[in-house]
């Protein structure tokens, strides 16, 4: 950046160069926000006013409309972090670092919400707020991994160095998650009685699928919007840190 002050406008630079990325993605923010809001409005209306109660679960099926999307997001966000980690390690893509860092707290929150809604759904359905079944337990372990990653980001002083180290850890986590799922499922079949009510067991009629799909997309777009905004902030934050460092050096040499 000291040799040429104006970077080329190639497609690679558009997504790799931080300020160019911010420039072309900023106009996307308002459309994404509006789309998210509209999806949530429709989803909530369908969830409460235009869908019947489930023949087995009664009205508590409405919790599924927010439990399934948050559970899906908990996995999807980790997949995004894994792809970003690969981009960071393999291509040294600068926006990959930013993407990874911004996604972590979002993923942790959605995972916690999946556990929260799952727990509240479990109480009327299974009778307890918590059941050590395979899925909930794996989600709990995933939450711990997310929180560990968030703690890691905060522990490093140098965020640029942190990015690659955390990318390695994210990949190790990604490889481990299927193993964790498998072991937890094995463990829960050991200790569970034969019949366990599975919340999404019976086939779902269309009138229940509609709100589910809408909420699914609503939550996904919520994540994408927040993620994009957080990436912009992170780019600015890095510039702030660089400028503050320069100011300190200028002050020292003055």
């Amino acid at each position, binding site marked *: 950046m000291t040799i040429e002050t104006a970077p080329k406008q190639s497609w690679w630079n558009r997504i790799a160069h931080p300020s160019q990325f911010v420039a072309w993605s900023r106009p996307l923010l308002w459309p994404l926000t509006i789309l998210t809001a509209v999806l949530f409005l429709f989803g909530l209306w369908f969830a409460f006013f235009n869908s019947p109660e489930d023949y087995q679960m009664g009205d508590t099926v409405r919790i599924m409309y927010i439990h399934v999307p948050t559970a899906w997001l908990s996995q999807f966000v980790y997949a995004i972090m894994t792809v970003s980690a690969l981009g960071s390690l393999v291509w040294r893509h600068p926006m990959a670092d930013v993407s990874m860092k911004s996604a972590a707290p979002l993923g942790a929150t959605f995972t916690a919400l999946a556990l929260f809604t799952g727990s509240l759904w479990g109480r009327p359905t299974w009778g307890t707020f918590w059941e050590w079944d395979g899925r909930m337990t794996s989600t709990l372990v995933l939450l711990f991994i997310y929180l560990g990653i968030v703690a890691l980001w905060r522990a490093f002083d140098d965020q640029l160095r942190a990015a690659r*180290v955390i990318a390695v850890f994210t990949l190790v986590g990604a490889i481990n998650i299927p193993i964790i799922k498998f072991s937890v499922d094995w463990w829960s079949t050991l*200790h569970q009685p034969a019949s366990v009510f599975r919340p999404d067991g019976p086939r779902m009629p269309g009138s229940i699928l509609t709100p589910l799909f809408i909420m699914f997309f609503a939550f996904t777009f919520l994540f994408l919007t927040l993620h994009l905004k957080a990436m912009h902030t992170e780019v600015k934050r890095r510039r702030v840190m660089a400028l503050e460092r320069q100011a300190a050096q200028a002050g020292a040499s003055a």
Partner: protein
Amino acid sequence: MTAFSALIGRELRMAVRNGGDVLTLLLFFVIVGAVVPFAVGPDKDLLALLAPGIVWIAAFLSMLLGLDRLFRADHEDGTLILLRGADLPFSAVVAAKVIAHWLVAAVPLIVASPILAVLLAMDMGGFWKTVLSLAVGTPALAAFGAVGAAVTVSIRRGGLIAPVLIAPLAVPVLIFGVGAISTGTGPDQSGAALLFLAAISLMAAALCPFMAALAISSGED
């Protein structure tokens, strides 16, 4: 002597010389196991039921607490940078360190586990299974631990975060480790659990040195 075995020898000699922290880990292992009856009561049936889990938790915590000694000392005095520039590939360096760490931190636990089994009223058949499951499973703990130690090596007081990072990843080891001793009241699947445990240990031993080496190199560029 090859560089690899020389490195293992160096690690072992240094561990023997500063014997303090290794004995402390062993003591921690025994104490955790011994303290549980104070917490849950001395009922033999209850203890026997819980014994496999308690032994594994004690080993789990011991291995996690001992993570820091893998890289921190070498990082602080610059040896790690020298080792990175050596002829031996850095992942082999890390593998040598992990092997030495296992020999120093895990083998005492394995040898001491029958003491815990006795304290926790485990039946005699369980003793051998305990030793075997710890022998097969602790390499996985050491390997995952190496990744945690490598990721946190450049952080001041990173030793606090490493166990938090590794614990979720080591859950399968805990599950299959306990399962290899006893699988509860249903049909006995401890053989299957031991095989899964062995699979995890082999995979971890193969992959984690590379990942740990990558983490250290990425952190120091």
